[in-house]
Every structure is written in C-alpha cells, then in structure tokens.
C-alpha cells in the first residue's frame, strides 16, 4: 500500500520473526523513545536520571536486538556513546580549578532533549485522538459542475507534483529516446520561456507533457528538457502562466497538468521581468 514499506504502518514489521522481543523493540521510535521507556519502568525522574543504571539497561536492550540478529540502527549506537560519555563525566570529581563551584550537569542536554521529545509525543497523541477526516468523519461530497469547460480548477500544484510529472515524462521517454549526443547545444532557460509563451499565444492551454516533449512527442535532449522545465517554473513564478490540474472527488490532484496563460493584466510584462531577473 505504501511506497515506503514499513514506514506508515510502524516498524512492527521488523518483528516478523515471531519473537516477542523483536516486536517490542521495533515499537520504539528511536533511542529517545527507548530511554523514556526505561525511565518510566524504573520510575525515576527525567530531570534526575540514574545514568549508570539507565545506560546499563539501555545497552542490555541493544544487546537483545543484536542477539536476535537484527540491525541496531546507528542512532541507537550514537545514544549509547552519549550515555557512556555522560557516565564518565559523572564519575569525574568536580573540576578543582573551577572556582564557580560545580560545573553544569553533564546530563542537562540529554534531559532537555528527552523533555522536548516527550512533549512532542504528547502532541502526536493529541493528533491521534482528533476526529480525522477519512477515518472518523467524512465530508459531504459536492462535485464542481460538469458544465464547466473542464472539470479543472486551479489547485496548489506544488513543486512536488510538478517534479513528479517531470519524472513521469522522463520515465515515459526512456533512456533510448535520446541516443548518444555529441554536439553541444546552447540552451537557455530564457529561450525556452519564449518558446513556451509563444506556444501559449497560439493555444490557450497546453498539456505539461507536450511542452517538454518535442512536437513529434519525442524526448528532446536533456539540456532542452531541463531548461524547459525550469522555464515553466520560472514563468509560473512570474505569474505569466498558471498551472492547472484536475481534481478527483476527494480533492486530490488527478489527470494531466495543464499550463494556461495568466489572465492577469500585468502578465504581458513577463518578458521585461525576465530581462530584469536573468
């Protein structure tokens, strides 16, 4: 279901070996989470951690993971080193040369991080208990009217979606479409901006993929491709064109991304703006 297996459905999948320990350890979100757990089961104060006892138990937990042949993530090891360092600092006598008295508590930074993390865990719990749209409550669905020329509205096509589309075009074109190239082309973003705007003067709306592929639907050279992509982003930033995409019934983006000339009266000035910027 997820493109990143194990990410959204918690790390519990690591415990598929069937061992109760594996499942339990996989449930810790990280070294801070494990430490908070140890502090809780030991019934000690975060602000006054018995560092020797806690770090011993912490290492024992890591050992359990290792015995089960599971990888101990680097961040757990880093915390083990931090604990060892704090423990060694606690054993040192107060610096005799320091006339100010005792130095800062070597645990202070860790305590601050634990308190902060604990607070965000609390926020996460609060978020989890809210009434989620799509889990606890559902919205009334009214679709935009069909009589609209296209069931499109301007949506927040972020850079993220645009890059996705860019990658899809790349994937569609495949590597073979652009065979070995020797000649050096000089392509500028500015030039590609002119090409895109010229195309938009002829037609009110262009599909994103037509813009980046050549008129024969062939993948152009990589430099043209990249320059065109940047040109579209730049034109969008200058409000010379707008980027549209259809929406599905749940408000998510759907279908091809379209480019349209901006209706803003000032958008004709895009070329001056380009000249100014680039």
């Amino acid at each position, binding site marked *: 279901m997820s*493109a990143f297996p194990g990410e959204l459905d918690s790390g519990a999948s690591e415990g598929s070996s069937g061992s109760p320990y594996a499942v339990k350890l996989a449930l810790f979100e990280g070294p801070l989470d494990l430490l908070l757990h140890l502090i809780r089961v030991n019934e000690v104060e975060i602000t006054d951690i018995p560092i020797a006892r806690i770090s011993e138990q912490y290492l024992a937990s890591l050992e359990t993971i290792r015995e089960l042949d599971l990888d101990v993530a680097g961040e757990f090891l880093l915390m083990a080193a931090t604990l060892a360092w704090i423990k060694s600092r606690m054993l040192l006598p107060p610096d005799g040369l320091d006339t100010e008295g005792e130095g800062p508590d070597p645990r202070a930074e860790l305590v601050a991080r634990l308190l902060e993390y604990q607070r965000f*865990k609390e926020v996460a719990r609060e978020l989890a208990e809210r009434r989620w749209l799509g889990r606890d409550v559902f919205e009334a669905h009214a*679709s935009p009217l069909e009589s609209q020329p296209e069931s499109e509205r301007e949506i*927040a096509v972020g850079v993220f979606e645009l890059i996705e589309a860019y990658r899809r075009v790349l994937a569609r074109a495949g590597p073979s479409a652009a065979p070995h190239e020797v000649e050096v082309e000089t392509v500028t973003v500015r030039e590609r901006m002119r090409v895109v705007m010229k195309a938009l003067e002829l037609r009110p709306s262009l599909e994103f993929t037509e813009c980046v592929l050549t008129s024969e639907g062939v993948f152009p050279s990589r430099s043209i491709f990249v320059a065109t992509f940047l040109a579209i982003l730049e034109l969008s930033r200058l409000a010379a064109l707008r980027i549209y995409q259809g929406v599905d019934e749940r408000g998510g983006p759907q279908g091809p991304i379209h480019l349209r000339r901006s209706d803003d009266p000032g958008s004709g000035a895009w070329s001056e703006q380009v000249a100014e910027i680039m």
Partner: protein
Amino acid sequence: MERSEQLSIAEALILASPEPIPLPRLASLIPSCKPAVARALVDELNAEYLMRGRAFEIWEVAGGFQLRTLPAFASYVQASQPERPLRLSQAALETLAVVAYRQPVTRAEIEHVRGVDAGAVLRSLLERHLVRIAGHREVPGRPLLYATSRRFLEVFGLARIEDLPTLRELAELAPEGPAGAHPTLESVGSVSEAPEPPGQPADEDDADVSDDDEYFDDDEDPRSESE
C-alpha cells in the same frame, strides 16, 4: 429577508460547496447577510441538526464551513468508501507534531527532536499532502523548510493552525510533563508561519528543484496514495 430563508440558503450553500466555504464568501452569497450573521446561522443550523438527531454537522475547517458525518457513523461510512480509512504511524504522527509546532522547520531539526532519520516519513507525508515544502532556510546549504498544508487542517479538523493547543497547555494536561522545566521549551508554543491561505497555491516560490533526488527514490505516482 426572513431569517428562516437565510438559514436554508446557508445550508444549501454549505451542502453544495465542493470544499470548505469561507465565512466571507458564505455571507456574500446570502442576501443582506453580514459575516457575523452568517456565523450565527451556522451555529443555528448545527443546533437544529443536534436537536433533530441528524447524522451530520457543520465543521469549521481550513478556513471554511463543511458538512461532515458524525463520528458515530464512522464504521458504516468507512465500509462505503473505496479507500481504506486513513492510517498514520506513530513516526508519521510525531513528525507531523514537530512540523506543526516548529514550522517552517528543516529536516535536521525534526531529526534532532525525534533522534531518528526523518527522510522516509517526510516523503510519505509529502505524498499524502499533509506536509508541504515552504522554501529554503537562508543558511549555508539552503536546507528545505517544511510546513503543514491545508490538507493537514482538513484531516485534523482544524479551522486554522493556531487552533492547535499550545505545547504548554498540553504539558499541563500531561501528568508526567513538568511544565516549562527547560527554558528552550518555552518559546515552542508559537507558530512562526501562518498556514497557506485557502485555495492559494503553496508558497514554494524559491523551493529548489535541483535536489529532488532527496525526495524521490522511486517512480511511484504519489497521487495514488493520496486520499
């Protein structure tokens, strides 16, 4: 115009709106209606729904009003939906919590708070449109900044990001949370950036596209994941 007529118009407008309808827009569409009156109409409608035992109510989310089913009917409506109900892991929730309260925030800052890598979680939150890229921090390396999205407000039923309880309020609720024990935690409650305005494209003018590989490790269509 009769108030009862205004009430029905407000109900029709909210029902027929494909997305949360903002208060000023609602008021402008009802003849001789000021925003304060429109809000009173919504309250009246909700009172009526409650009294009559209707299965829905009007929520104020992401800067507008929207009709939503009551939680009591969740299991029935879930069964009727093509998608599986929304699920978020503990890692995703904790990351969202940090983004919500620290936004705009860098990946490194999130990782410092949680003590673990945040790359994969951030990617999946971006795919679900719960988090957006809000530009760069102008420091060496120009790291990307993350912020919560309009979708975040919709999913968690918030009218605006300021409606999240402050961290101090949460600490007071939590039995084990020593409130304000550390000075650096005092300033956390304020959110330094307003949410993106409803219906406006996200402000990612200066988001850098050159380092996209950091976010895309595969060719999956992220929209297949969005609900």
